[in-house]
C-alpha cells in the first residue's frame, strides 16, 4: 500500500486494523483511535482521496490503494494545508485528539462542496465527535477553509492572508 506517497508492505496478521497498522507499525500516530466502532471519526483517513474510517478496515484491505493520513497533508516543514490553517485561525481545536479526523473529513467535504452552505457544513461534519469545542469553532474553521481553498482570482475580495496574530514560526500564507 502507499501511505502518504511511500510504499509500505501490509502486515502479516490479517486481523490488524488499518488504524493500528498506521499508528504502531508505521509510526504515523497522527491518526487517532476513539471508539473502534466507526462512530467518533477520530480515525478518519483518506483512501484513494475519499475519507473513510481506518478502524473499520483491516490493514490488508489497503493493499493496492493510496492512504493519506494527517501527516501527509503538509509534509515536514511545509506550510499548513488550507484546512489545517483554517482550524488554527478559528481555534477549531482544543485537546487536538479529534482534530486529524475532522481535518480529513473536511478535506473530503470541501472536495464535494467547495463552497458549502451552513447546512452542508453541519451535514459534512456530523460524522465526527468533538467533546471540547462544542463544534462552533469547527464550523467557523470549515467556512474559513473554504475561503482559503478558493482559487485565486484577480479581483477577489476575500483576504488570502490569515489573521495577523502570532503563529509560532510557521509561514503565514496557506499553499494555493
Amino acid at each position, binding site marked *: 500500500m502507499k501511505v502518504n506517497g511511500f510504499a509500505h508492505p501490509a502486515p502479516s496478521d490479517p*486481523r490488524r486494523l488499518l488504524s493500528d497498522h498506521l499508528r504502531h507499525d508505521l509510526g504515523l500516530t497522527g491518526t487517532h483511535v476513539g471508539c473502534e466502532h466507526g462512530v467518533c471519526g477520530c480515525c478518519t483517513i483518506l*483512501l484513494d482521496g475519499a475519507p*473513510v474510517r481506518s478502524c473499520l478496515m483491516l490493514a490488508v484491505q489497503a493493499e493496492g490503494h493510496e492512504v493519506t493520513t494527517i501527516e501527509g497533508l503538509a509534509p515536514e516543514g511545509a506550510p499548513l494545508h488550507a484546512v489545517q490553517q483554517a482550524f488554527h485561525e478559528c481555534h477549531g481545536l482544543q485537546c487536538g485528539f479529534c482534530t486529524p479526523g475532522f481535518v480529513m*473529513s473536511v478535506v*473530503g467535504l470541501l472536495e464535494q462542496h467547495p463552497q458549502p452552505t451552513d447546512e452542508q457544513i453541519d451535514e459534512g461534519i*456530523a*460524522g465526527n465527535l468533538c467533546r471540547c469545542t462544542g463544534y462552533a469553532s469547527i464550523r467557523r474553521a470549515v467556512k474559513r477553509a473554504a475561503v482559503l481553498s478558493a482559487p485565486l482570482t484577480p479581483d477577489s475580495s476575500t483576504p488570502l492572508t490569515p489573521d495577523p496574530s502570532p503563529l509560532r514560526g510557521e509561514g503565514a500564507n496557506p499553499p494555493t
Partner: protein
Amino acid sequence: MKPPRFEYHAPSTIDEACALLTSLEDAKVLAGGQSLMPLLNFRLARPAHLVDINRVAGLDRIYERDGGVGVQALARQAAVEDSELVARVCPLLSDALRLVAHRVIRNRGTVCGSIAHADPASELPAVLLALGGHVVARSKRGDRKIEAGALFAGVFETSIAPDELVVEAWFPRSPKPSAILEESRRHGDFALAGVVRAGDRLALFGVAPTPVVADAKDPARGLQPSGDLEATPEFRLHLVRVLTEKAFAA
C-alpha cells in the same frame, strides 16, 4: 477492542468467492465492512472465515435495467448517492441514502451490504420492500432472484443461503410521490421508526424484526414493535402514525 482470530480470504473473481462460500464452514462476507467490522471489533461476531470481496473486479456497476436501477455488490453508498442515473430513475433511493449514517461511512459502505445485513432499523431494506425490488444471489448452483418480500426473515436474518453471495440489488423506478421519513435521535442514527412511501405503497422500518409493508390508512395495525433504550413499543407506534400521516399529507 481487537477482532478475534479468523482465516482471511481475498478472492479476485466472483467464482472464486462463490467457491469459497461453498467450501468454507462459518464464513462471512466482508464488503464495505461498516456493519461487520464493528461487530468483529466488539467480538460479537466470531466467524472462522472472512471472505473479503473487495478485490473482485467489475462488481461495482450502477446501471439501468428493466426500467429500474441495478446496483452491484461493490457499488459504494456514496457512489449511488451521487449517481445521476439513480437521481433520475429512482430518486427515492438517493433520498434514502442521505439518511444512512454519515458520508464518511457511505464512502465505504455498500448498498448490497446494507441490504444483506438486514438491520430492522435501516433504511435500504425498507426502500427495496416499498418499491418491490429484488436481489440477485449467486452461488455455484447459479443465480437466484429473491424478491424483497421473500428476502427479509428476521432481525439480521435473510433468506440468502450461506453459500450465496449477493451480487446485485435491483430497484424499480420510484413512483411519484415517494418519500422517506424517519425519526432518529441524532443525525445519521438508526431510526426509532421510519416510513417509506412509494406511490400508494407503504413500508415501515424500525418497528418490527424486518421491514414490513403496511396500510397507509392504519399503519400500526398488527404491529408489535420491540422496546429499547430510546423507544417503547407505544412510542414506536405513535411515531409510525405521525410519520405516515406526514408522508401521505403531501
